[in-house]
């Protein structure tokens, strides 16, 4: 991501991640689901609740998309899934493709 010119900020857990989101207002958030302190689903719901300066895209990394996960992700705005394992280039391409489209679609 850095090589492609993105500024990348990292956080060890969901709580730290939320702080960074509120402080730095990133354009893209890439999150796991199983994390210490605040898990990925809770983080997504909190992101969804942000009114101003919310990320343009949230990518949720998951082992295998389940029906429950699909339902709650579809309830989020500007949120997509990415199944593990995935290659880093796929991740970057997904971000760039998302922003290159005229209208952002949910996967």
């Amino acid at each position: 991501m850095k090589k492609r010119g993105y500024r990348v900020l990292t956080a060890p857990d969901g709580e730290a991640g939320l702080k960074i989101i509120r402080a730095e207002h990133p354009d893209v958030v890439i999150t796991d689901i199983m994390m210490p302190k605040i898990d990925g689903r809770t983080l997504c719901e909190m992101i969804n609740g942000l009114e101003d300066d919310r990320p343009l895209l949230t990518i949720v990394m998951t082992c295998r998309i389940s029906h429950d996960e699909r339902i709650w992700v579809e309830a989020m705005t500007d949120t997509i899934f990415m199944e593990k394992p995935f290659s880093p280039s796929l991740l970057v391409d997904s971000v760039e493709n998302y922003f290159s489209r005229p209208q952002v679609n949910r996967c």
Partner: protein
Amino acid sequence: MKLNRISIIMLILCLAGLSLFTHALVNNEQRRTKQQILAKGNYLTSLIALYPIRDFSLERRDFFLRTLNEYTSPEGLVYFYVHDQQGQSLLSLAPDNLAARIPADIQSKSLYTMAFTQQQFHPQGFDHTIYEFAKPVFENGQKTGTVRLGLKLEPAVLFSMERVQLVGMVLFFVAAGLGLFYYGIINSLKPLSHLNQNLKRVCWDPEAVAGEEVPAVGITPVISNLEGSLGQVQDRLGRIEAQNTQMAARIGAVTFEKNQILNILDSIHFGIIIADHQNRVIHINGYMLKLLKRSRQEIIDRPAGETIENETLRTALAGMDDIGPSPTGKTVEAVYPELAPGEVFQALFSFLTDQDGLSIGKMIQIKNITGEKIAESAKGDFIASVSHELLTPLTNIKSYSELLMDDEVTDAEMQKEFYNIINEETNRLSHLVQNLLNISKMEMGNLTLNKGTVRTDWFVKDCIATVEGSAREKNITIEKDLPDIFPSIIADKELLRTAIINIMGNAVKYTPENGRIRFAIAEQDKTVLFEIEDSGYGISQEDLPHIFDKFFRSGDHHITEQKGSGLGLATTSEIVQLHEGAIDVHSQIGSGTRFTVRIPKEEYRIAES
């Protein structure tokens, strides 16, 4: 023939009785007559002897003769003499001329008697006994003469008119009584005949005809028929009694079997409700009564819909009739939030059928599936957790590998860091896979120990080295409490290593930064102790009993924050048990945790070649 013989015997007995009666009657009559004679003789002699001798002259002779005639009969009087003092006869009356036949001693005694004398004798040629009565005549104190009277027994009259009348009267009453008796018997035969008919009907005698009167043919046949019928009734009652006994035994056996079945139903660990076609409860077992907190009496014969106390189940029950019988029945999940909060039940609705396949009622089986749900959820969580645990390091390995392969990273230090990350993630994956394999083998009973001598000094170094890196990242100090002489044990080195590293890995994971972990090893009573103590978050008393359960993870946020599959301690526990060892844990929230693993020492024998 029998009857005639009895009649002859009866006749003989009657004749014998009659002759005995007659003999007794005659004897009685003679005795009575004798007493009369004696009394008469005594009286007459005494009476006549009161008169003076001179009265026996011719003028008074008729008087005495009249007196004699009045008191005696011609058949009874034998003789009458009045003698003077010299023995000359003054008055004599002897119809039979027996004077010469009177024995001299009798006569002499009578003539010379000074008081009343009574004698009897039997003269020759005379058929009767003569009773002589003699009494002296006294005048002025001097005996002046003797009165002698001779009497004999008058013939006994058995059948006098009076007696005949009496006998006739008796015979009349006897005949009348017999007649009435016979009439009574005849009259009683009719109800006896009816009774006979009814008894035959009771005994199912084909000869008995309903409503037909059987004429009384005689006392003996009726009585004998009655006897036969009573015998048949007795047989019939005996058979009925035997049948009743068999029936009672069968009922007893059926009741026993029914009670056995009810006991079995009550001992089953799920609920059973059986209802009839009108949906009324005909049986409910103990499990269900306990769940509903009701008594059997409150529920039996009540509508099943009322009994179930659950809307979902009530709807399913109502829908059974629409669906009809099916081989598998209908399954519905339900909860009882007030009666069994937090529990989940599965109800199976089915029809009960008989041997011909016809429906005879409905059955509802209610099973508590809370455990299964938890297990299912735990398995789901486990799969999600394992998937995450497997795929996350794979993602990292893939990502960092691709970056390295694409020459995205040129900095040597960064490259080294990426290789380290790949190595650590690979180790993490390997450890997880090993745990999964071990658990799987344990589940299937295929895990076998590959025992050998384990040098505990190398073993300790190896274990500590495995977790040192993770500990260093959190600035956790690992203290070693090691003996001067390291004991050796016979164990499966790899499995034991997995067991100890699981504990040490947890210690690192659940100890906050700047914490402390103490690793100790000691020998005690032919046992080697491995002790791992940390200054971590500790385990609650509620969670302590479950920490060795498969897939268990505490709900404490310190635990859920960390990655884990819930298999580490379960694997450790199984491995220790396979080594016939023991594992203890002491912990307190906020004060850390201490695990003590005891592995018994074994004698190592070298196999003879």
